[in-house]
């Protein structure tokens, strides 16, 4: 009975997504751009839920329970994604762009890492868990990633932390004509214009060393895929095996063989670790491939419509009288947030800002929304539809597996969800991305700053696990007083 009901729900949700897609197509063919985001989001949601694919779990379960399942899944996904990214870059079909490199990435990762452990899921993990009915994740996503993030980029509460040199650098740029003076109002604006914009962006294949040593398309496969992703990921897999799996595996193997173990057993141990959770590892492979396909499709649509950003499409539709854009929906550069690939947090910040504007808050007087990303209505925000797609894709998969359960947070989970969400929201801004945009996409694209963010995330997760270990030990001691 329950199974039947879940299947009906899965059908209803999928039907609803098809209906929404058909309506978009009927309104204007340009909205196929939004529809592509919806269905890639839907696919991500299904895969994340099926593989229990959460980046928080990758480091957290390693430290908390010694379980490498998710760390292996993430590294496998990275390896496959990097090869697809290299193929796309070599055919000029990539939408990837590297990010400013600096210590800010490490610090942001640290804050984000603590947040994802507290809230119980990373940015993408929180969305798929909402799809499972987990409302603690909804608290983290809504109050932290949406509202908290939007407030963070719009307030001047952190001006006391801004060095004079950043303010001077921002003022210099304004004097030269860009950015507009009226868009520098928040602490985050000084951070962007006075610090981050001056930092170098690195993509290995585009560095002097590799572009001169590796002519043609080989630089994408050797520099971006092999050197920036495949080798480090393989090394990490070996390190994880050595510290978390090797001892137990060899002990079991020696018992089975009744004697010594050799190098062949080490290789078996490594393979055993990779295949221990088949659903996670297989999903790692598929997610890597689908994330690459996503880039291919978005680039294809951009070429078809003759644009490089959905903001240009919105402006075109506005001029044709098909829609009426409100002031500030599209940024001063004529763009909206349109990464062209898998991304999570910026669009949630846009939703938060849109909600805050309904309460009279001016969210367009800053660089983040006013100049860089725009603030489109949610219905024509392509990346936001990707996040919605993730939630519904995960909901369908959870229903099909009879794993959907609506759970409101109770007691301490409110605190962890709220605190973790806020830390994730704040931790995703200075780095201009989260576990997906700043870690997963960047590493596979050949940007070493992704590893810096990863190092911060893992360190933050370690602190978070230490805290939860202390917290749970106290509660266990109380429970065990009775016996």
């Amino acid at each position, binding site marked *: 009975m329950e199974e039947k009901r879940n299947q009906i729900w899965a059908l209803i949700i999928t039907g609803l997504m098809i209906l929404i897609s058909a309506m978009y197509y009927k309104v204007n063919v340009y909205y196929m751009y939004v529809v592509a985001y919806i269905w890639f989001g839907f696919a991500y949601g299904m895969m994340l839920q099926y593989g*229990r694919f*959460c980046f*928080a*779990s990758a480091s*957290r*379960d390693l430290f*908390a*329970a*010694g*379980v490498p*399942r*998710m760390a292996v899944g993430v590294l496998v996904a990275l390896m496959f994604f990097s090869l697809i990214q290299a193929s796309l870059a070599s055919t000029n079909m990539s939408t990837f762009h590297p990010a400013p490199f600096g210590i800010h990435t490490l610090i942001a990762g640290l804050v984000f890492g603590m947040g994802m*452990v507290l809230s*119980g*899921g990373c940015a993408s993990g929180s969305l798929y*868990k909402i799809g*499972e009915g*987990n409302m*603690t*994740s909804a608290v983290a996503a809504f109050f932290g990633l949406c509202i908290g993030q939007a407030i963070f980029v719009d307030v001047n509460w952190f001006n006391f932390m801004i060095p004079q040199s950043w303010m001077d650098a921002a003022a210099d740029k304004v004097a030269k004509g860009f950015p507009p003076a009226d868009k520098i109002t928040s602490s985050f604006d000084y951070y962007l214009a006075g610090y981050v914009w001056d930092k170098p962006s690195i993509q290995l294949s585009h560095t002097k060393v590799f572009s001169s040593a590796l002519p043609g398309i080989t630089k994408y496969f050797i520099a971006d895929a092999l050197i920036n992703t495949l080798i480090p990921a393989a090394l990490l897999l070996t390190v994880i095996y050595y510290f*978390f*799996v090797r001892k*137990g595996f060899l002990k*079991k193997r020696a018992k089975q063989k009744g004697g010594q173990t050799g190098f062949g057993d080490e290789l078996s141990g490594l393979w055993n670790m990779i295949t*221990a*959770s088949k*659903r*996670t590892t297989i999903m790692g492979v598929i997610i890597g491939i689908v994330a690459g396909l996503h880039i291919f499709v978005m680039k294809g649509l951009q070429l078809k419509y003759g644009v490089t950003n959905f903001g240009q499409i919105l402006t075109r539709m506005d001029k044709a009288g098909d829609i009426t854009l409100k002031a500030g929906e599209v940024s001063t550069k004529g763009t909206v947030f349109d990464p062209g690939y898998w991304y999570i947090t910026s669009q949630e910040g846009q939703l938060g800002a849109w909600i805050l504007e309904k309460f009279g808050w001016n969210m367009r007087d800053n660089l983040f929304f006013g100049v860089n990303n725009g603030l489109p209505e949610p219905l024509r925000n392509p990346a936001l539809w990707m996040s919605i797609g993730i939630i519904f894709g995960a909901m369908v998969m*959870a229903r099909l*597996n*009879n*794993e959907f*359960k609506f*759970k409101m947070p*109770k*007691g301490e*989970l409110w605190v962890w969800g709220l605190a973790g969400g806020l830390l994730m929201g704040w931790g995703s801004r200075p780095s201009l991305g989260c576990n997906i945009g700043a870690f997963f996409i960047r590493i596979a694209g050949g940007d070493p700053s992704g590893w810096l963010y990863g190092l911060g995330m893992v360190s933050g997760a370690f602190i978070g*696990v230490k805290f*939860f*270990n202390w917290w*749970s*030990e106290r*509660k*266990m001691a109380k*429970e*065990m007083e*009775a*016996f």
Partner: protein
Amino acid sequence: MAMKFEKTGDGTYMLDVCGYVCPHPQIYCKKSLEKMNEGDVVQVILDNPSSVETIAQMCDQVGHDILERKTEGGKIYVKIKKS
């Protein structure tokens, strides 16, 4: 909502972490097993699917036996014997 860890008999325990999300069920499960003696059995009751995968792999790695794993009425029951 409160986590419950109870002794239900000689060498048998019950850990109820229903309502909790990651990482709480796996952390409480690990800590419960640490407090128990070899051969003791704990019945873990949870409703967070993601945690079950981690608990299963943790038991496999350490060598604890999963005696039973079933889902009933939205709750997941995992019976583990400490080795």
